[in-house]
């Protein structure tokens, strides 16, 4: 067992436990976005940062990837952590304001405005879909391409994938997808999470028979009306 202190509370956890798991065990709220149980920790969204060590030599680390260490001092809601988290949420809101998940996180952190130029992106590149596809569905149909601002998610060479089973799990796990897939015109209905797959709902001639894992799939709702 490993003993550490989180927000002043002593806690003992198994070796290999992450700080996020330890904090969740104590019931401490830490917002996460790219993290998902069942998928390997990725540390991309940086929302789950916590402060480790003693100031002034303390640093911020992502709790989802950081393994518990003997005697470590962790603070999950210090001023520095909150300042960072709020700024990250502001950045997220500026890019993907329509995501319900992000809106909820913003509300929980009391972030009520964002000060950047408003964008309307359909992907925050959290990589949930990529890991879902590779680790749980064992398909590996999608991955990252490009870097920096050109980074995106797609199939190899952006062509229709032969290994994709159109299972829709990628869309199911997407935190910004829900409201994005609200169109039923084929060219608009493409969700970034599975960018170059043929979305199942538009491939079918009859919308009544389609298979969609989105809950709720607004696209279908609209069509039905």
């Amino acid at each position, binding site marked *: 067992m490993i003993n550490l202190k989180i927000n002043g509370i002593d806690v003992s956890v198994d070796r290999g436990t992450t700080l996020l798991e330890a904090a969740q065990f104590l019931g401490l709220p830490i917002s996460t976005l790219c993290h998902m149980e069942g998928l390997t*920790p990725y*540390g*991309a*969204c*940086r929302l789950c*940062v916590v402060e480790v060590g003693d100031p002034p030599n303390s*640093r*911020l680390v*992502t709790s989802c*990837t*950081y*393994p518990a260490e003997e005697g470590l001092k962790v603070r999950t809601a210090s001023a*520095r952590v909150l*300042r*960072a988290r709020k*700024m*990250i949420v502001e*950045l*997220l809101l*500026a*890019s993907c304001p329509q995501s319900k998940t992000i809106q909820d996180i913003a509300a929980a952190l009391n972030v009520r405005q964002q*000060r*950047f*130029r408003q964008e309307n992106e359909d992907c*925050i*590149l*959290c*990589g949930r879909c990529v890991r879902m596809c590779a680790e749980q569905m064992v398909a590996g149909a999608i*991955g*990252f391409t*490009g*870097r*920096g*601002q*050109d*980074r995106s998610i797609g199939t190899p060479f952006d062509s229709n994938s032969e290994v994709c089973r159109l299972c829709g799990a990628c869309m199911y796990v997407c935190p910004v997808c829900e409201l994005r897939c609200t169109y039923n015109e084929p060219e608009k209905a493409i969700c970034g999470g599975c960018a170059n797959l043929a979305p199942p709902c538009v491939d079918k001639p009859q919308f009544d028979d389609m298979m969609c894992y989105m809950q709720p799939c607004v696209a279908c709702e609209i069509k039905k009306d």
Partner: protein
Amino acid sequence: MRKLQSLDDLIGFRERVSAEKDLKTETPTLVVSAGTCGQASGANDIMRIIKRHILKENLGDKIELRITGCHGFCQVEPFILVEPQLHLYPQLKMEDVPRVIEAVLGGYVEEDLIYTEPQVGTKFHSQSDIPFFKKQTRTILGSNQMLDPIRIFNYFERDGYAALEKVLSKADPEWIIEEIKSSGLRGRGGAGFPAGRKWELARASGDDHQPKFVVCNCDEGDPGAYMDRSLLEGNPHSILEGMIIAGIAIGAAHGIIYVRGEYPLAIKHTMIALRQARELGLLGDDILGTGNDFEIEIVRGAGAFVCGEETALIRSVEGFMGEPKQRPPYPIERGIDGFPTCINNVETLANIRIIINSGAAEYAKVGVPGNTGTKIFSLVGKIRDTGLVEVPLGMTIGEVVHDIGGGPPGKARIKAVQTGGPSGGCIPAEHFDLPVDFDSLREAGSIMGSGGMIVMDEDTCMVDVAKYFMGFLKDESCGKCFTCRKGTQRMHEILEDITEGRGTLDQLTLLEELAVVVRDTSMCGLGQSAANPVLSTLRYFRNEYERHIVDKRCDAFVCKDLVGPPCQAACPVGTEAWRYVAHIARGEYEDAYRVIREANPFPSVCARACDHTCEQRCRAGTSGGDPIAIRALKRFITDRIEPSVYIPVRHEWQEGEPPKVAVVGAGPAGLTTAHFLSLEGYRVTVFEAEPEPGGMLFCAIPEYRLPRDVIKKEIDSLLDDNITVVCNTSLGDDITVDGLFDDGFSAVLLALGAHKSRPLGLDNEDVPGVYPSIEFLKAFNLKSEQLAKGRVGVIGGGNSAIDAARTALRQRDVESVTILYRRTRAEMPAFEEEVEAAIEEGVTIETLVSPTEIKTTSGLFSHLGCVRNSLGEPDSSGRRRPVRIEGSEHVIELDTLIVAISEDSGVDSITPARSGGIEVTDWNTVKADARTLLTSRSGVFAAGDVVTGPNTIIDAIADGKKAAVMIDHFVRGEELVQPVKSLMPTVHLDPVEVDPEEAPDDRVETPRASIEWRKRNFAEVEVGLSMQEATREARRCLRCDLEFVERTAPDVRAAGGHAE
């Protein structure tokens, strides 16, 4: 080559190689630096010519040729270095090569071609005496010039693989680690982690059955940094030796050199070196029979900047997309394929053999405690000598920049140094005493990085620099972690807003907040340091950001959208120089006059005595050619067109009696204010202490530069019914500020000028024969008194010194005139053309000399005691400070001494006691708000030299214009500070079609009167241009305005080009 079987074989082999080498030390050797930099500059041609010449003349046994990697002095490539004398022949042309060979054979020095220090002109016969090399400690880089990287024998001649030999004979890995630890070597890749500690961890990591890796990180992606490339190119065996030792120390059998694909020469040389080492048995299984296995392979990177980061590098080696992984686990525990991996920078590995060979204790003597050894920097940017420099850690930035780099290449002052590549920070010139080591740089908000040093001068905009680097990082961020990807994009977006004039102060706050969060929360080193360019420029250059945001100005003339046409932006009164030049090109001289006069009420005066910053910024000049002779063109117009052509727009005062405004001082500032207030309907009374209006125009500027009738005519054209000039009335004696308010003046402007020369602070300064320059000039200009006699000395280097010298030269009883200046001519603040004209007329300029004592003979000035100076460290103004040379005291015989070091305001007359409530500064100027010109007393404004100290005419006019606006706002009870106006052109003028064949590219010479004639009289020296000359010159204009006017007002263009 026979494979070496044992350690003894290796020792024997080296002995044989060294013995052979000793036989041929006598032969002169031509060394050509042919690294990537050398080849790009033409070293291949030089080599070809040398080879052909040797073959043709059959010199094979008389001369040797060695082709090496980069020596570091990239500025002078391609060059030939002659051993053993170390003559350096820089920037050689192909046709000069035979002359060099002749000189080498003849045993003499070709003086025409040998290295000559730019600007100074000193010739250096030995490479080691050249300032660029003199202060360096070239333990690593120095061997590049001694060996051909593709010949392993060369490496053996220079103690090659001696360290490996020592390590193998000890057969104790712990000893190696101890040596490296006690040497204090820190990783040269940027973070500065102790190399010995890393090896110790790597040795302890993993179990015995696991393979381990040693990786040499040569993924050098920083713009402007190429020291790793030069090492791998110039001395690949030293890196291999370092890696083999590292492998033995940590128990690794696999080595990987990760090198960018963009370094083909480095890859080629490394591959050759690997083959040679394998053939000799220095790589492979069971090295020299000692039981150590080590093999090295090369992995080529595809050029992603982030792959320099160790976890991303590992992913890339593994064959995945190069993106970092959250640490821990560290590569030392789990690296390539999950096995312990020790990643060292090229330069770190190059240091290993030095440490082993010389011993840790000896190595640690170089540098400072905690930061031992040397570091290679690539010194680039606005500096005279660019290249790679190797200095002991702890040397100050100032020494690197000024002593090794030779300071700025031109007149612009060095402002800052950017260290550590794109994610480093900027360190301002005030902090150039900072030692370059890992810890000091981090404290100062920058990083060592891999050692890039980009020097920036006044023409570099720090906001633009931050934007450039942020743009680079935004593109090179791998995009995995959100704060780095989006944070750099957003920072770039805000910086773009600021440089394009849309920025707000709120955005600046946001930028800073964001930068701190990006630094705190990013996954890898790239993101964590990505905020440095922003944070360090904000820390040291916040004023530049604020100037961009609040005033919408870029003082470095870089941010195009704020600057507009540079000539207009450079003019303090915003004259649309491009516009009148265009009118001249089209032959519309009256229109040209109107354009000039609209902005500037003193066009004829400025056509003669302006310091023409417009020409300094003219793009025809800054882009490598000669600037347009804008002032001469202005003179051409003002000589031809009567002031009456311009009819200003007048406004009558609408409600009730027009308010009265008092202006004290009838110089350019005061008269400008009076004129513009009069146009708004004010009644202005101008009080002047002297018998005539004109201020400094009359008192200080000599007639040969500015004829009296020109001033009079210009002033007369400004005076009208609203303006009353009261002469012979001085503030304090005849009028007071309180009195003016009592007399019903609504506002008072103090525009008294600067009329007192600052004394030298020596004894006897008041004896007859010693005069302050202003007194001397005034006595002559106003009363025609000729005070100068015999041999005249003038102390100072400003315009006032030159004016005094040239006036003295024209006086009756003067034999000779000498200007004594404490710095060199390059630092003289006077206008270049004035200095030239003075020299032409026979004024002697003695530089690097300061007065120490004024000696008298029977009460009259007779001798001046002087001391010689040398130039030391730069002061706050960026100019190098004069330092006295002890024992250089000497005495100069003189009859008259004119002191022209600087001027004070005539502030005596407005001391708070007399006028009530107007604060003055310690420099005897009136304290006035820079934005509003308001003094500490409400209703009292101040403008011109009385605020700034001695300054140019055009600045005084600009102040006067501003004062008029401020006084108008004040009287009307409006907010003083108004939103800034854009500098963008609003008028489109069709350019004149010029046949490119006939288009002139050289600047018209300003005609001057002949020297012999002008020397003895006060007639004007400069003569106007002819119509032909003016048209030709005006047609040279690049018309920078067109770029902006088409963008801002397409409808104006459609309307046929005339907006008015």
